[in-house]
């Protein structure tokens, strides 16, 4: 899975989000060793200090933990990561509904539209 970064948003929270998604989807497993700060920096093409800051924030939330001299590990309990992803899904859905409301559709119309919607080929 690649690292998709939005150029108009701060990088640090985006790294946090993507790590939570990878944990929630099971790509990064409980108690498994994470990539090093430098490895994430290289594959995502971002500054190592930013990755370090993201890891520290995830550590504070209990999503990952560090082992002295060994690196970063995914916490045994992935509930917090799942919650973060659910919160993201919620806020993005809110945004979507807000944008569709602005186009003149009410919520029941949006739901009907989504149900019948097919992706472009």
């Amino acid at each position, binding site marked *: 899975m690649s690292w998709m970064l939005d*150029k108009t948003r701060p990088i640090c929270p985006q790294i946090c989000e993507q790590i939570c998604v990878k944990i929630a989807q099971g790509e990064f497993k409980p108690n498994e060793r994470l990539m090093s700060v430098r490895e994430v920096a290289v594959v995502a093409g971002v500054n190592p*200090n930013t990755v370090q800051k993201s890891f520290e924030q995830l550590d504070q939330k209990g999503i990952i933990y560090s082992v002295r001299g060994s690196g970063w590990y995914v916490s045994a309990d992935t509930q917090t990561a799942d919650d973060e992803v659910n919160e993201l899904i919620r806020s993005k859905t809110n945004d979507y509904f807000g944008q569709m409301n602005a186009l003149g559709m009410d919520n029941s119309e949006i739901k009907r539209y989504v149900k019948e919607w097919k992706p472009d080929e």
Partner: protein
Amino acid sequence: MNELLKCENLTKTYGRITALNNVNLVIPRGKIIGLLGPNGSGKTTLIKILNGLLTPTEGSLTISGFKPGVETKSKVSYLPDSSYLNSWMKVEQIVNMFIDFYPDFRPELAYKMLKNLDIDPTAKLKTLSKGNKEKVCLILVMSRNAELYVLDEPIAGVDPATRDYIISTIINNYNPEASVLLSTHLISDIEQILDEVIFINKGVVELHKTVDEIREENGMSVDELFREVFRW
């Protein structure tokens, strides 16, 4: 000491033209910093003072507490905006020259990067394309184990694949004791790897912030903000 580079009231005038006007800057260790500004804004003047190629008209600039001179040349690895290497020399001869000049030069790293970028060490510099010449210069500069890397327009003439390689080289070479100062006007490709950006215009520092602060406060990329600030 965390302050690697410090400018205090730094001013440089060329006759009646003011290239730098009362610049105050502190650059700590362990940062990758973009020096951004339109043509003629004073980027190269600042870099030349830093390397002792120009002397300030007023104010001071110090690197780890030293004025630019013999001590600082062993700490600063500088990529100028134009090549100064002898074009009749072979790449490996230039590598040997760097080994003689700089005790902190890491030849194994230089040869590894030359190999990765498919550059023949036995080729003469003048037989290489413009982009490949730039790559050789950058490899030499990044192969030193310096405290401050100063790169003046490092990505201007290279193809996008090489640009990515250069960016990953800068990240891989990251060292918490050293900083990288790179000047460019091609911001969008590199803003993700920067800690901080310095916008300089008409010799004045207009803005000095982290990339995430800029994105947070303006809701736009550094590149977009740059275009907005320097529109005419």
